Structure formats: structure tokens, C-alpha cells
């Protein structure tokens, strides 16, 4: 009998995502992939996987999943509310995110709201037994490819699992939540700086922008002061779009292009968000406020290398976690107090 995770109730926008579909942009194929590659990688590390296995990207509110396997090890990374149900009609008990849990057949995990950011990731040990498309398990819904039938999860879906049971190794937790950084979102000016006026650049770097309701896997439309173009105007002969490219159409409001971005586009791009800060953008919710600050390409590369070092330390420094599936609030509280002594 094949092992499955059953989607008893789907969340708002759950899709399978890995690092993306790389190498086919010349054919117009968007990369897709995780909006927050940091959380994806940490979730895989906690589940005992290689970095690049597809996991469930949870958008804003997560699913309820029933275990139809002898046992399963899974890990949720991100500030999501998690509750474990021992079976149908049993009381739900809160369990922690940012660690792995070993759950048994018939138990169900309810992933509630993600708190304060837009995404969290749920990885399972061994991954999902779904065929890759053009080398990737990432879901790209606009072309209905990848993941499970190229779409977001629905009530009643059965996600096939590679492993029928969890391995016997112990559960792990993050030593600390990953520090994504704060302050302005860093950008490298260009490629079309010359399509913006001097005031336009000053407005962009000197103003606060608010994430509008038009924010999804393709990109984020910001609201705020209008950015002035130069005499060259907002239109260009279409060229390639890098992840994090900030295009500014005629109305002057910036749009940051993210995982599901089209491969080429015809609006002038004032700057590109640096790769180290893309996961921060992937976590933004409507109403969040950001500022942008300019750095050089060399500075951006150094920031990425520094982040990579911290990420490698985080995955190398996972700590043993108490081997259980669900605990009550009092015990959880007590455990946290003595954590360092007993489990450190």
C-alpha cells in the first residue's frame, strides 16, 4: 500500500515548490520555485533531506493533513500555528514549528495561520513521490505544470510519499529562528537607470512603499510616491527579467517580480533586489512597509555569501528535539525553560 498525506482541508494557497525549474527560460519557461528558499532549505534539513527536495509552500493559511503511512517525519519552518490531532474527533494539541515531528498513521496535523509573514514550508522526510517536470517539482499554476497536477492543493488530495515510514533517527529543531535581517531591502540599481529621472531615483530610494493587495507568487505591486521616468519613458524593447527585478510602468509605481515572473518584459527596470533579500520579499504581506537602499553588485554578492555561511551553520547546528508528537501547553512551557539543560 502506498503511503500518502491526505489533504483533509486545503489551505489558502498550498503548492509544492523546490528551488525552481532552471535552464529553460530561453523557451519562455518561468523558474517558479520557493518564494523563501531559506525556509525551504531549513525545512528539508530538519526532515533529514537534501536541500532541494520539493516541500509544501504554505500561503497565509495552511492545510489539515492526515497521515496515511506507518509513520512520517515532517517539519514546518516559519511562524505557523500547528495542532496535532490523535484521530478523528479528538482534541487538538498545539505543537511547535521550526522542528521535526514524527507522526503516526491516523494522526492529523492542522496548519493554521502563518503569523506575520506570508509563507511557511512543510517538508516530509524522503519527499513526495511526484514526477518532476523539466527537472523540477515546482508548481507553476499558470501553465498547470509541476507539483500535484500543476495546481494548488485541494480538499481530498492524496500526496504520495517516497517513504512508507519515518527513519529511526531522532527529531531535530533549529537552534534559533533564522535571522532574515531587517532595515531597508537592498537593491542594485539598473538595468535601465537611464529611463528614470534624477528625482525618480531619489523618490524610489527615499520613500516608504506599502505592499498592495496585488501580491502573489508572480510579484508584488507597491503603493507609494510615483517614480518619475526620464525622457526615455517607461517602455523598452522587452529584455530578460532577473529575480527581484523592479519594473516601473507608466503610472510610476514599482512592481517587484518574484518566483513566477515571466522571463522577459517590456517595462523599464529601475533596480534589482539582491538575492540575499529575496526571501524577505517572499514573506511580505499586503500592508507591510518597506524602504529600498542601493548597494553595488560586489556588496550584494558578499552579502549573499555571508548569508550562505549563516545558513550552512544553521543546518549544521540542528539540535535534538524531544521525541514526541504532541504535548500540552504547560509541558511545552516547562520544556522551554529547561531546554538548554536537558536537550542542549
Amino acid at each position, binding site marked *: 500500500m502506498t503511503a500518502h498525506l491526505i489533504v483533509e482541508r486545503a489551505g489558502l494557497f498550498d503548492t509544492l515548490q523546490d528551488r525552481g525549474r*532552471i*535552464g*529553460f*527560460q*530561453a*523557451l*519562455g*519557461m*518561468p523558474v517558479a520555485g520557493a518564494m523563501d528558499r531559506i525556509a525551504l532549505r531549513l525545512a528539508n534539513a530538519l526532515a533529514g533531506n537534501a536541500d532541494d527536495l520539493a516541500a509544501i509552500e504554505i500561503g497565509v493559511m495552511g492545510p489539515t493533513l492526515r497521515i496515511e503511512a506507518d509513520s512520517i517525519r515532517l517539519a514546518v519552518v516559519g511562524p505557523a500555528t500547528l495542532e496535532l490531532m490523535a484521530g478523528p474527533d479528538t482534541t487538538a494539541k498545539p505543537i511547535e514549528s521550526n522542528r521535526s515531528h514524527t507522526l503516526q498513521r491516523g494522526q492529523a496535523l492542522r496548519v493554521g495561520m502563518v503569523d506575520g509573514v506570508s509563507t511557511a514550508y512543510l517538508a516530509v522526510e524522503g519527499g513526495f513521490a511526484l514526477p518532476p*517536470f*523539466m527537472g523540477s517539482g515546482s508548481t*507553476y499554476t*499558470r*501553465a*498547470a*505544470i509541476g507539483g500535484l497536477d*500543476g495546481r494548488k492543493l485541494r480538499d481530498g488530495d492524496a500526496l504520495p510519499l517516497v517513504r512508507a515510514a519515518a527513519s529511526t533517527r531522532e527529531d531535530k529543531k533549529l537552534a534559533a529562528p533564522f535571522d532574515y535581517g531587517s532595515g531597508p531591502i537592498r*537593491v*542594485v*540599481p*539598473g*538595468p*535601465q537607470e537611464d529611463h528614470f529621472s534624477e528625482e525618480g531615483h531619489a523618490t524610489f530610494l527615499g520613500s516608504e512603499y506599502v505592499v498592495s493587495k496585488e501580491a502573489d507568487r508572480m510579484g508584488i505591486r507597491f503603493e507609494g510616491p510615483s517614480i518619475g521616468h526620464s525622457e526615455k519613458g517607461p517602455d*523598452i*524593447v*522587452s*529584455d*530578460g*527579467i*532577473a*529575480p*527581484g*527585478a523592479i519594473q516601473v510602468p507608466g503610472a510610476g509605481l514599482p512592481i517587484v517580480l518574484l518566483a513566477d515572473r*515571466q*522571463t*522577459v*518584459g517590456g517595462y523599464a*527596470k529601475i533596480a*534589482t*533586489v*539582491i*538575492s*540575499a533579500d529575496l526571501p524577505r520579499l517572499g514573506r511580505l504581506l499586503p500592508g507591510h512597509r518597506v524602504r529600498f537602499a542601493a548597494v553595488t*553588485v*560586489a556588496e*550584494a*554578492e558578499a552579502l*549573499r*555569501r555571508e548569508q*550562505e555561511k549563516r545558513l550552512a551553520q544553521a543546518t549544521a547546528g540542528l539540535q535534538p528535539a524531544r521525541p514526541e508528537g504532541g504535548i500540552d501547553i504547560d509541558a511545552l512551557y516547562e520544556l522551554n525553560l529547561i531546554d538548554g539543560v536537558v536537550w542542549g
Partner: protein
Amino acid sequence: MSVRYLNCGDTAFSVEFGSTIAPDINARVMGLHARIAAERAAGRLPGVVETIPSMRALMVCYDPLATTRAALQPEIEALVTGGLEAAAPSRTLAIPCCYDDPEFAPDLPEVAERTGMTLEAVIARHTASDFHVYVLGFMPGLAYVVGLAPELELPRRSQPRVRVPRSSVGIAMNMTTIYPFDSPGGWHVLGRTPLWMFDQRREQPVLLAPGDRLQFRRIERSEYDAIAAQVEAGMLDWSTLEVKA
């Protein structure tokens, strides 16, 4: 115009050969695209992830954990200054297209009226046009195909259609395109091909590639239906579309 190297963050840069749509500029883009692919196949240019050609520029995508812009750009510059062979069209494809069913060709009468030609003359100009695939983008498998007969040049429709059926053949400006999916669209639809531009059942699902040369071949509805049945069944061998010189 001299070549410019434009910043696209810390994972890409753009090699811009010009700012207009012109065959000689696009030929250099495709030349560099092919040259970098050959270098990578030979194990050189570590850290390059992929390249994205567009009408006038090539975007070089790299992994900032495997290389740096400072190390990579001089290597790309050397390829550019060393001379790029104008990439010959890799192949010529004959695209069957049915212009004769009014359901397939909703904009044919309007195009005829606005260009002052008969329906037959519009179809004849489209099938006589020498088309080149310059770039794919916007959605998977959607090709911008340049080379439309100048008499047919029109701006996009002022009111885009909410739904254009898959495999519709449209024109706008000096280009033609074939819709890979049902989607909104503002091009003037002249006909429909039984081919699918994107067939996810195939290992390589995209039919067209930058550099391809295209000719449209007029077919009757009966031939359309026969080819469509083959396509539906996944039985059409794409290599049979190639026109041998």
C-alpha cells in the same frame, strides 16, 4: 552601438547589443547565446546557470556562490570581442494554419478592411512572410516571431480579447505569434494551427526555439482536423514539420 553590460542584481547581468528590433542585433544575441552554451558544454564558464535571449540583449544568469560578476564578465567580454558567428537559423518549420473557418479567424475581415486588401490577399501575405523566432517569453512556449509582410502591420487591438483559444495565430506590429494556451490577448487572430506550442506530455514540451525560421502553410479544415487528431493523441512527430533545404 557599442555593447553595454547592465546590472541585473547579483544573479544576472544583461549584455545589450542595441536598443531596437533589428536582424543584425538579434543575430549577435543568438550568436552569444549559442557560444556560451558551447563553452558550458565544454566545461568552461563555471557558475553560469542559463542565458535568456531577447530581441536585443542576452541575460546571463549566474550563481553568486559559484562565481562573481568581476570574474565572469571579462570571460563573456572576451567571447563578444572575439567575434560572434551569426547563428544560422537552426531549422525551418512549416506551420500548418487554417484561415478558412470564421471561428478560427475572427479578425481576418477587420485586418482586410484596415489594410485595404481582400481576405485572400491577407492570407497570401501571411503565408509568404519569412518569419524568424526572435524570443520566447511572457508564457511558456509563446514566441515573438518577426518578419510579417509590411502591408499587414497594425498595432495591437485597442480592446484585448478576454480569451483567445490555444493555437490561435495572431499578428501585431511586424510580428506574428501562436498562443500556447487559452489566454487573454490583443493580437489580431487570422487563423488557427492544429499544432500545440506547448505539450507537457513531451520531455521537451516547447515546439519553437529562438533562431527558428517559420513559414505558414495554408490548410483546409479537413486537414486541420486530421492533424489535430494526431496532436491530441500525441502521435505527431515534430521533426516532420521541418522543411529540408
